[in-house]
Structure formats: C-alpha cells, structure tokens
C-alpha cells in the first residue's frame, strides 16, 4: 500500500503512465464527444414542451454534473498534500481549481442560456442550484486567487489545500442552506418544475454519453496541465532535462 502510494506520488511515474494513457483517452473522448454532439444536435427529437432547446440540456447537465466533482477532488488532493506531502497531489489540485472555475462558469452560462428560453429570464435567485453553483464559482476563484497571491509555491500548496478542504464542506452547506431558504421564500422553483419534464430516453442516453465525454475531457485537460506542472517543477531532474534536450 505504502509502496504503491509513494510510487503514485512520483511525478516521473505519473508522467510516463499518463503519456501512455493519453492517446487512448483522447481517442475515447473524440468518439464519445462526436457521438453525443451529433446525436444531440441532429437526431434528438424536439421535446414537446422544451422544443429544440433540450439540446442545450445535454451539454448543460453534463457540464453541471461534472463541475460538482471539483471540490471533492481538490479536497482529497489537499488532504494528500497536507498529510503525505505528495507533490503530485498539489500539481493536480492547482490545475483543478482553475479548470473547476471554467466548468462552473460554463454551467452558469449554459444554464442561463437555457433559462432565458424556458423561464424567460437569464438568472433566477429563487433556484438553489443556480445560487449554490454561483458561490461554488466564487470559492473556486478564491482558491485560484489565493494561489496567485502567495508567491512561495510550497506555502501556496498547503494554504490552497486547507482552503479546498474548508471550501468543500462549505459548498455542501451553502447548497443545503440555499435550498432551504428557497423552499421558504418561494416554494415552486421553476427549475424543479421543469427538470421533471418528461424527456425521452434518447435524451438521457445522449446525456449519459455526453457526461462520459466531459469526464474524459476533464481528465485529459487535467493530465495535460499536470504534465506541464511536472516539467516545470521537476526541471532539474535528470529525466526532465533529457526529455527537454530531446524535444
């Protein structure tokens, strides 16, 4: 167990392994993404209520669901950083924060574009999901800005790890408190009504494929960024210098 752990912590090991995996991941992503997009755009029948805008949901639901994975991911990475001082965990966490902010932003944007059709408004404070996603976005930006504010990379790693753990708990609390708050303010949120709308099975299959594609994309992007981070932080290691020389 320990051996496995320290091996996994080795940037070199990760770099080599991810190098082997990348082509497969990229291939899988391209295939699933193409299938999902083509299906969604061309073949998905119009929903009786939402019309062709259900095509938006395929993207939205996939991105939204995926974006909820970031804080847990960062909290786990943060714990590993703080407890085992594993460098690799921090390299992942660093890029996850920025990518998570992107994901949250796209969730908000696609949600708004959907809402502007279905609710006639781009933004609705009465929906817990929207509000808690907004604050998740803020917190992720907070992590990113803490990282850039602290110049010492070691210090930044630990500080961000701690903030990610605290933030993870907080996102959950925000989510539930906002939900409760909304129940009290306005019992029927438009989103909760509409998301029950009977989308056909095709919709869900397309969405599931899209979720798969988005997760693949997430891992590819994260792996690419982490590999960069490795090149930078391990630049004096023998193997990196050789790699650079041969590039």
């Amino acid at each position, binding site marked *: 167990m320990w051996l496995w752990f320290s091996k996994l912590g080795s940037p070199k090991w990760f770099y080599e392994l991810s190098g082997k995996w990348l082509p497969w991941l990229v291939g899988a992503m391209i295939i699933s993404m193409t299938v999902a997009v083509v299906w969604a755009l*061309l073949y998905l029948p119009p929903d009786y209520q939402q019309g*062709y805008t259900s095509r938006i949901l395929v993207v939205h639901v996939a991105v939204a669901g995926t974006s909820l994975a970031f804080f847990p991911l960062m909290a786990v990475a943060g714990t590993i950083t703080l407890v085992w001082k594993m460098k690799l965990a921090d390299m992942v966490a660093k890029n996850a924060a920025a990518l998570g902010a992107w994901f949250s932003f796209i969730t908000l*944007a696609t949600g708004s574009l*959907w809402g502007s059709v279905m609710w006639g408004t781009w933004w609705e404070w009465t929906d817990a999901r929207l509000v808690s996603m907004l604050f998740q976005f803020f917190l992720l930006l907070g992590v990113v800005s803490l990282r850039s504010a602290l110049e010492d990379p070691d210090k930044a790693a630990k500080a961000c790890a701690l903030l990610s753990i605290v933030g993870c708990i907080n996102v959950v609390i925000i989510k539930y408190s906002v939900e409760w708050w909304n129940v009290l303010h306005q019992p029927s949120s438009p989103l909760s009504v509409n998301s029950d709308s009977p989308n056909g099975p095709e919709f869900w299959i397309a969405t599931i494929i899209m979720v798969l594609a988005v997760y693949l994309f997430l891992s590819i992007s994260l792996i690419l960024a982490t*590999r960069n981070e490795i090149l930078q932080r391990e630049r004096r290691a023998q193997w990196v210098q050789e790699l*650079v020389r041969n590039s």
Partner: protein
Amino acid sequence: MIEAIQFSSFSEFLDMGGYAFNVWSVYGLFAVFIIANLWLPLNKRKQILREQKRRLLVNEERNITTDDKQQ
C-alpha cells in the same frame, strides 16, 4: 439513419426551431471551452520546453566558460 435526422434542410438545422441563438451559443461556448482547455496546456507545454531548452543551453555554455576560467 438519415431519416432519423430531425431537420429537413440545413437552414432548418441552423434555426433550431427558433432558438438558434441559445442553442448555438451553448454549443459555441462548449466548443470554445473544450478547445481552450486543451489548447492552453498544449501551448504552455511548448513554451515550457522551449524555455527550458534555452536555459539548459545557456547553463551549459556558462559551465564551459567557467571551466575555462578555472583551467
């Protein structure tokens, strides 16, 4: 296969049942998002490699010159 396509013409496809702006913005954003987050790290990788290569060469040069001095 072809019959299952929901649109009979390309312009109908572009129109998306009247919601062109929303649908295409979402997919446009999605595309930008995905391409950006793949292109940025790839581009950065090139940059890093270039920079480090330069630094390596400079270091080697410097080592050689200091070696000269020491000799």
